[in-house]
């Protein structure tokens, strides 16, 4: 087959591949992935052996399995660059984006377990039903600019909100949060993702809506006992607990639970 005179990209790629091959191949190895296969009626981990390329991530391995061994392996993905938050799963038991989980950061020689997020109902294999999140989002009182406000503000006024707006809706924080994961309080608790969204709205320089009532009565923010698991798993490094949840808790407390004693009880009470 001709290389093609116009195969510019192909030529660039071929050059890259040749050079990659010429590189030391000590890290070229085979990995074993144990991927959960199943649906709501049950399932099990199935073992796949995958050749490891330099810089490979778990999502690459899943794609290799799809292309070569299991074309029906269900997985969500889009950007492959940690910008869309689609490929959330539990890699070796830890909630993570598969596109950011480097194979060479996994313990060498040990199988890598890849399972769907536990907090949401399984659809099939690595795909879960995350529709509950969209239903919660819909209930949050939307952005409402103050009348007559001037649309001018300083960069320093919005840095905090811009941090919240980095959220890529991977729902890993929702997956790891014990209020949702262990206690299954989805009807009473909005979860870290939506506290981040609400914080972004509440701290918007022009917003005039008041969401403290929603946070208390529908969001269940009091149920969060600030263990910071959400902050730890956030692939965007949003300091969810400190910058979003705690200030929102303070707003709720200031509004509904003055005096000071009530504040302390609510923040550090029985659950602490």
């Amino acid at each position, binding site marked *: 087959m*001709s290389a093609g005179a116009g195969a510019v*990209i*192909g030529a*660039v790629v071929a050059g890259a591949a040749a*050079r990659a091959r010429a590189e030391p191949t000590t890290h070229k190895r085979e990995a074993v992935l144990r991927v959960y296969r199943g649906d709501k009626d049950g399932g099990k981990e199935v073992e796949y052996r995958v050749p490891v390329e330099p810089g490979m991530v778990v999502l690459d391995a899943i794609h290799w399995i799809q292309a070569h061994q299991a074309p029906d392996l*269900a997985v969500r993905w*889009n*950007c492959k660059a940690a910008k869309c938050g689609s490929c959330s799963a539990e890699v070796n038991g830890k909630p993570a984006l598969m596109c950011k989980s480097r194979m060479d950061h996994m313990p060498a020689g040990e199988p890598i377990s890849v399972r769907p997020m536990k907090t949401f109902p399984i659809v099939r294999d690595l795909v879960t039903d995350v529709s509950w999140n969209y239903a919660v989002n819909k209930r949050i009182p939307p952005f409402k600019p103050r009348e007559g406000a001037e649309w001018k*503000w300083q960069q320093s006024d919005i840095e905090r909100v811009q941090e919240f707006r980095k959220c890529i809706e991977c729902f890993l924080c929702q997956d790891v949060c014990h209020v949702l994961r262990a206690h299954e309080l989805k009807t009473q608790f909005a979860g870290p993702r939506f506290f981040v969204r609400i914080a972004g709205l509440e701290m918007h320089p022009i917003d005039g809506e008041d969401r403290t009532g929603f946070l208390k009565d529908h969001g269940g923010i009091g149920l969060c006992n600030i263990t910071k698991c959400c902050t730890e798993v956030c692939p965007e490094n949003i300091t969810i607990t400190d910058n979003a949840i705690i200030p929102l808790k303070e707003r709720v407390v200031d509004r509904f639970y003055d005096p000071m004693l009530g504040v302390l009880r609510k923040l550090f009470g029985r659950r602490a």
Partner: protein
Amino acid sequence: MSDKYEVHEHDVLVIGAGGAGLRAAIEASAAGVSVGLVCKSLLGKAHTVMAEGGIAAALAHVDPQDGWQTHFKDTMKGGSFLNHWRMAQIHAQEAPDRVRELEQWGALFDRTPDGRILQRAFGGHTWKRLAHVGDRTGLEMIRTLQDRGVHQGLEVYMECTITRLLVDGGRIAGAVGYWRESGRFVVFRAKAVVIATGGVGKAYKVTSNSWEYTGDGQALAYEAGAELIDMEFVQFHPTGMVWPPGVMGLLVTEGVRGEGGILRNSAGERFMWKYLPEARRHEYAENEQEAREWLDASVANRQTQARRPPELSTRDNVSRAIYTEVKEGRGTPHGGAFLDISYLPAERVMKKLPSMYHQFLELADVDITKQPMEVGPTTHYIMGGLRVDPDTAAATVPGLYAAGEAAAGLHGANRLGGNSLSDLVVFGRRAGAAAAAYAKSAAAPRASDAEIEAEARAMLEPFERASGENPFTVHQALEDCMDRLVGIYRVERDLTHALEELEKLKARAANVKVEGTRMFNPGWHLARDLANLLTVSEAITRSALLRKESRGAHSRLDHTAMDPALGNVNFRAKKSMTGMNVEPTPLPTMPAELKALFDAAPAPQPAGKAS
């Protein structure tokens, strides 16, 4: 008959929930009609989310000399004058309002020192014009539109793939598709359909696009009788990652160059000066010192006499430059060029390009505040698509509309960075408004049950075959064919060869075998997407074969010059009884008052040089 399928009825059905689809749905819904919004992924995951650098609009916040006329001229020049002048005019005039509207809906753009929306420099734009949020502008935009739409009461059908547009007596009557989760078929009855399905990147191996970009809208509309134009113009973004293999093609924002990124070859030479087109050389800095002056002024937010660095040439030009450097043996270890921003203070790099910092650190072990990146061209965008009316975004089939990447005309032969996000909201809004107005006046069409039945049967065939190829294998062969034979540089022999290959691939795709069940089965999904990819690949190749010249993103090794006669035509692909028919159609003539903008003005002013 169709009672056996789930049926939804809407006045307007929008297919695709990126920026264009969301903006169209919001507008149609605001007009008081019932709107359904269908997307292949979850809401908020469309490729708009990957747009990094910014949204182009002549707000003139940073460079007060800017105005719609200059934006219009830059867009036309960037597109080698093959753009539809009226779309370029509407776009330049309306983009500022659409940006302000996003802000009023809650988007938080970076600010100027006096508290207004900040704008950055980008390739081909005379002035600093791109409103942005660090390097995650697309995320800000899609989240803003998503929340606006959700609270407005749009009916969103997530993870649903449309496989056929329904037609009744030549007008659009809805669409049929399947739920990705269950594999069950679903029928949408609608008076108007807006195509906002994005691009075709998955026809190529090295691409910045995700699995979704399989040319669905273009192919479905083509099957329904709509015209596609300018399909030969595929944008190869100059800076994709080239290493590691798993992320090859992943986008490196043009914002890196906008913020001062310098391109060098393996010999350390800053090569872009060699590749500036003579006609536009005067727009760029003459030497390193002037380029540095421009950058320092940009960082300090002050006006300057210095002209912009050569790295800010248009994308088609920078892609060819990098390719040529690599091909002539001056490439980096992984076959690209070095893109260096590490000479700037680390704090500024991390503030202005945070996603790029993390992307390289986590995926390539490269700290961009200390080391150069390695980058090379990647298939990014298609300028071609559905032919639409500039004012209404109406396609050539009654009831069908298109906006965003799926539509053609605005960008001509090459798109300027930043003009895509503005395209989405300017023409998304117009498409939504026009579709709603049409739906209000149109009687309800009725698609035939036989058509729906036939589609359902065809969809199930890959399960029923006793044997056949894995769809992933056929897809890889297609990507390989398009990369090799219909890439940045094209030549008649390769294009003819590609057409033969595509015929063979069509036969292979028609005989793939799918394993497993209909529940969330990626192999089955790909089996259907392949047909769309093959349609758009054929349109790209046939149009490229006919355009015997080099213009914008289309470079022919056997016709290296621009042919003025071909500057007056768009190639149009349309389905005929005998297959795909591609032929030239006349380019609309620009009115005298707009032409005068080019004649009257002196040579384009470099940044900061106007009075």
